[in-house]
């Protein structure tokens, strides 16, 4: 069964037609990179997968998105439960003004888990998975704001992992970070792939080629090409894709 299966997706911000007939399939435990020039609809597409766009007034979608075979836009679907399955890491690190521990425990608590030991175990394990443990193990009760940007972003990843999602969406997770932090995040993505299906938006071609199995190229709201990353970067079918990855525009 496909983990993500978007069929004939069209999306509108009021009048503006932001996504045009997108069809995209993702298998389990794959990393898919979304690339394309600014404003082409990458974030919009990503946010469709956990229904984050529901928050914006006046938006409209047609087509369907299946996550593990379930239509997430079907009536009766609970968005909060969906979002537990489909985690998201944002472009700018956005920890809560709480302690490091509480940041990671947040998702567990809001999902009704109150068993202390379980929470603690899970928090530690998630922070470890996010490759942050050594740096924060002595200050779990300190404010998350005291961490560096890169650490904050890994904390946000840990926070997402704690609720054991099946899919992790990442919207340019390293764009606000320095090169060293970026490298750490990339390494982490590579690790996470074993357990999660990941979709990542990036502006960085090297990054896309390093971390992803497949790459989708978006342009002006359309998905121009979607293929194995190696193919996209070495031998794209479309001229537009080639122009973009060789840096002729974008």
């Amino acid at each position, binding site marked *: 069964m496909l983990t993500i299966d978007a069929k004939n997706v069209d999306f509108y911000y009021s009048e503006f037609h932001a996504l045009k007939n997108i069809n995209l399939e993702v298998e389990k435990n794959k990393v898919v990179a979304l690339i394309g020039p600014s404003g082409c609809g990458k974030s919009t597409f990503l946010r469709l997968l956990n229904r984050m766009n529901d928050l914006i007034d006046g938006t409209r979608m047609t087509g369907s998105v299946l996550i593990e075979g379930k239509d997430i836009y079907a009536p009766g679907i609970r968005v909060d439960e969906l*979002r*537990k399955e489909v985690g998201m890491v944002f472009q700018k690190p*956005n920890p809560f003004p709480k302690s490091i521990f509480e940041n990671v425990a*947040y998702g567990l608590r*809001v999902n009704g888990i109150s068993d202390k030991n379980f929470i603690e175990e899970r928090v530690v394990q998630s922070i470890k998975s996010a490759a942050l443990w050594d740096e924060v193990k002595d200050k779990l009760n300190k404010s998350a704001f*005291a961490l560096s940007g890169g650490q904050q972003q890994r904390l946000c990843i840990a926070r*997402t992992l704690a609720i054991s999602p099946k899919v992790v969406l990442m919207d340019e997770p390293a764009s606000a970070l320095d090169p060293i932090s970026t490298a750490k995040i990339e390494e982490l993505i590579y690790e996470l792939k074993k357990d999660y299906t990941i979709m990542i938006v990036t502006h960085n071609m090297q990054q896309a080629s390093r971390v992803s199995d497949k790459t989708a190229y978006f342009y002006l709201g359309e998905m121009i090409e979607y293929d194995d990353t190696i193919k996209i970067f070495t031998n794209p079918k479309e001229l537009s894709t080639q122009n973009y990855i060789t840096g002729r525009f974008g």
Partner: protein
Amino acid sequence: MQVKRFFEKLIEGFLLISGSITSITILLIVIFLFKEASGLFTTPVVEEGYVLAFNKENPIKHLNAYQIKQIFDSEISNWNEVGGKDMPIEVVRLSDLTNYYTEEELGAEFEHIPAKASELTAKTPGIVLFLPKQYVAKKFDGILLDHETIRPGDFFGGKEWYPTSTPSAQFGLLPLILGTFWVSLGAILLALPFGLAVAVYLAEIASMRVRNVLKPLIELLAGIPSVVYGFFGLVVIVPFLQQTFGLPVGETALAGSIILAIMALPTIITVAEDSMRTVPRAMKEASLALGATHWQTIYKVIVPYAKSGIMSAAVLGIGRAIGETMAVLMVTGNAAVIPHTLLEPVRTIPATIAAELGEAPVGSGHYQALFALGAILFLITMIISISVELISKKKYAK
């Protein structure tokens, strides 16, 4: 070119002067309020133009305002209750002199009063004589209490406010400050839950359309004059309370609290809502993306993040309630007694000033006492303003 530059400097000077006017005003308020207020403590404790006289043997040298009042109200009848000898107190007013002397003895023109008053004081060990200064004999045979002034303790610790009682006016702050406290507390307890509920509703739950109707309405209500609220309270709330609780009068602390709560609502709603709107979108999205419901996001992320703004809203609401004058004056009944329940009439500090300043002769003790009330009110609101300043400066605590 030179002229132009001079002109620019000149204008800048004007602007600076205008800019400093609020500071100057505050300074002047402080000076005038505190100058008049401090006059209170140099005001004689005994009514202007009168003295109290005791027998020479009486060891009492001082009486405070409240003791004098109790003595003349016969609530104290023995000198040992005010620290003297065990001896009954004999209160004598000018008019009582006829009980001791015939009219002939006092003289047709009362020309013998000074001598007789002196004589009576000398021969009555337990006497306290309340006498106009003009009738004090040159060589008065007794002790005169004429230098005693109102002490800070009389004001700050005084339990009674009877500014026109004789021989000693009572300027006790306690009933007024408690009245203010109870009315404001009631108001804020009513206004806060509703105000915050509306703020959350407007900031997070209501649709754009609903919001666009409610916001201007609430702003409009913030502008309605307090006399109009007071009038509404008087013709609607006061009779309603009187009937509902079967009270002798409907003008009560509770009526004041209700009206003040209504008046404080727009302030609380606006400030709290604005602060919740400043919560970054990213915070909200992060919470929702972790599977939190909207409500969980509100109380676990948005409200804590907007905490300082919400606290400012509460404090500003309290400030509004404490300083409000007319509406309270109209609905609380204005009895200057220490209240025991919210269903009794009370009198607040601002209402006292508004009600009495017109009758207090300029420069009198009463006038100065009202300025002292103003000074206290001013101090309270300064403290409130400064705490709002501090609260809003403080970033989210770890």
